[in-house]
């Protein structure tokens, strides 16, 4: 059986859904960050798949950009996370409800 575009897209969708579920349901903020990575990479995967399918280099370029941005984003996110942890001594997201009205 050949791996078609649909398979890639299906995988990408599954990864995306796992990522969304992770973001929405997990309490540990590290897991939430990792789930975010999953969402990113789901998107990257579909970009790469479409790039190959359409024989266009543009998609590849986007993927490279996206990975770079994701790396930066993780660095900032982890830094915030460390700061939050120092400040609140917790990484559980349901305890961080300072914005509550």
């Amino acid at each position: 059986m050949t791996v078609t575009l649909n398979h890639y897209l299906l995988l990408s969708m599954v990864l995306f859904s796992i990522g969304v579920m992770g973001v929405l349901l997990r309490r540990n903020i590290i897991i939430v960050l990792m789930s975010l990575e999953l969402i990113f990479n789901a998107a990257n995967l579909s970009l790469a798949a479409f790039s190959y399918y359409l024989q266009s280099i543009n998609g590849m370029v986007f993927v490279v950009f996206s990975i770079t941005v994701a790396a930066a984003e993780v660095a900032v996110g982890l830094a915030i996370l460390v700061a939050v942890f120092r400040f609140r001594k917790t990484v559980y997201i349901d305890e961080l409800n300072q914005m509550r009205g």
Partner: protein
Amino acid sequence: MFDIIWLIPLFPLTGAVANALAGARIGRKAIGWIGCSAVALAFLVATVLFFRLTGLPPDQRSATVTMFGWIASGGFQIDAVFLADPLSILMALVVSGVGFLIHVYSVGYMHDDRGFGRYFSFLNLFVFFMLVLVLSGDFLVMFFGWEGVGLCSYLLIGFWYEKKSASDAGKKAFIVNRVGDFGFIIGILLLFWSVAGQGVQSLRFDAVFDAARHLPPHTLTLVTALLFAGAIGKSAQFPLHVWLPDAMEGPTPVSALIHAATMVTAGVYMVARNSVLFTLAPVTGEVVAGLGIFTALFAATIGLVQNDIKKVLAYSTVSQLGYMFAAVGVGAFSAGIFHLMTHAFFKGLLFLGAGSVIHAMSGEQDMQRMGGLYRPLKATAITFIIGAVAIAGIPPLSGFWSKDEILYEVFRRGHPVLWAAGLLTAAMTAFYIFRQVFLIFSGPSRADEHTRSHIHESPRVMTVPLIVLAASAAIAGVFGFPFFKGGSPLHHFLSPVFAGGVHHAGAVAEEAAAGHGATAFILMGVSVVAAVTGILLAAFLYAEPFRRRAPSGLHPEVLAKRFTRLHNLLLNKYYVDEIYGKLIVDPLTRAARTCLSFDLSVIDGLVNGTGWLTRLTAWFSHQFDIYIVDGLVNSLATLVRYSSGVWRGLQTGYLQNYALIFVVGVLLMIAGVLVVI
């Protein structure tokens, strides 16, 4: 040639100021010297002027000396102006002469007093004001002196200010005098505007008198009546006589100088000075004469029963002043002035004698506790008796001539009733003065042991003035002796002043021509008989050797018992003070209190009520503001607050909630897009 007239009042003023400023630092001797020499110098200058005056022909014996402009406002121009004429110079001589003697006497009398310097300062100040009064050439300058002597009288009556009775008496004197001055000042205003209507805008005597001839009679009557009101106050005539007996609270020399010899006679002088006006207003003249004789009789009756040595003399002064007013009232101005002069001598003498007695009796003033003082106080006694004989009207002493001239003039000018009253008064005068003489000097001493052991004759400095005054009282009658060719010298001397009166000019000449006829001698005889009767009656009642021979009913206690009511009435001075208390003082006090409560409740109440009303309105608007105006604003806020409760629930603060909503939203949008497509 009269330019130096201002020196006369200046000397006493200097003395007063010097003693006031330096009195605490220089010794008593210096104070006494300053005080006496100031008055002596004034007397000297007055004497010089007197001789200058007599050196002139009679019709030129009047000179005004303008010192400086005093008050000037539009046409109201008042100069400080002095007048030298026979009347003013004569008065200046009397004031400074008698004043000098009393100053000398005071050096002895006040010797132990704490306020020696203050006393001489006040006394000199008094002489200053009195001299200004008599020498003034203008109504207002006269008023300056007039009020000034009132001030000094106030200060000297209340000299021993720690005594309540003394300060009360001073206050009473000043206020009663003010009542009279009220009339006086209104009179001056009326006079000023009346003569201003004639084109004369001045209050100088000469100018006013010239203009007065053209004034309507009723104006003149009113003016003179108002001026006389001032005289009533100053000269203690009924009904304003009440202050003078109380004024005896002051030191005795003060009583002698101010309340016998000089100040109280200012009213008489004033009427005489305005002889022109009073001659033109015969109605007022009648009133003056009637009131004068009434006061003379009224005060003499009170004097009959008083026991205070000075009170007797005070009522006697009121009575004698009544005589003077009778004289000037009927138009016999020179007779009034003559009596003023002799009275200054003998009443000053009597007061100083009384002072000497009080001095000897360690301050005792009740005659019931005296007696037998003739032997220890020989000089005082003899001089006092001379004074008594003079006032009783026994020839040839001065009192006889002056009093008799008044009675004669009153009779001659057609007032037999007044004459009879005057005669009765003369008898009473003789009685009360000799009652006093006998009570003080005759019989056994009624004083207590302690006082008796201290009785002593006064020092030279006090007896010498007594002797000089006694001599003057004895011989001053010469000036009014009517048997000289061309009438009495005093009359002659004064006639240029009084000749100004319209009808009077003729009268003087006629009188001089007629001389004293048979009527005069008969009247003289009658008055001598009256005086002798009075003296004999006093002797029977009070003098030891006569008392035993008196009829049984003639005894002071018996008489007092038989006429209890009358005796009480007289003893209480006709209750005039009490009547004034009820009629004037109490209502005034009540009016003051009523006004105060009216002011606090009604007027201030209105103000505070307005304030309260404002606050009430403010309270209402405050409530309105809170509940209605502010209420609207607040209810909007409340609405927002309550609704916010609902919305705040959405903001959980959980990131995942927001994300979930976000995802749900995205899904819904996708679903929506799908449905639309």
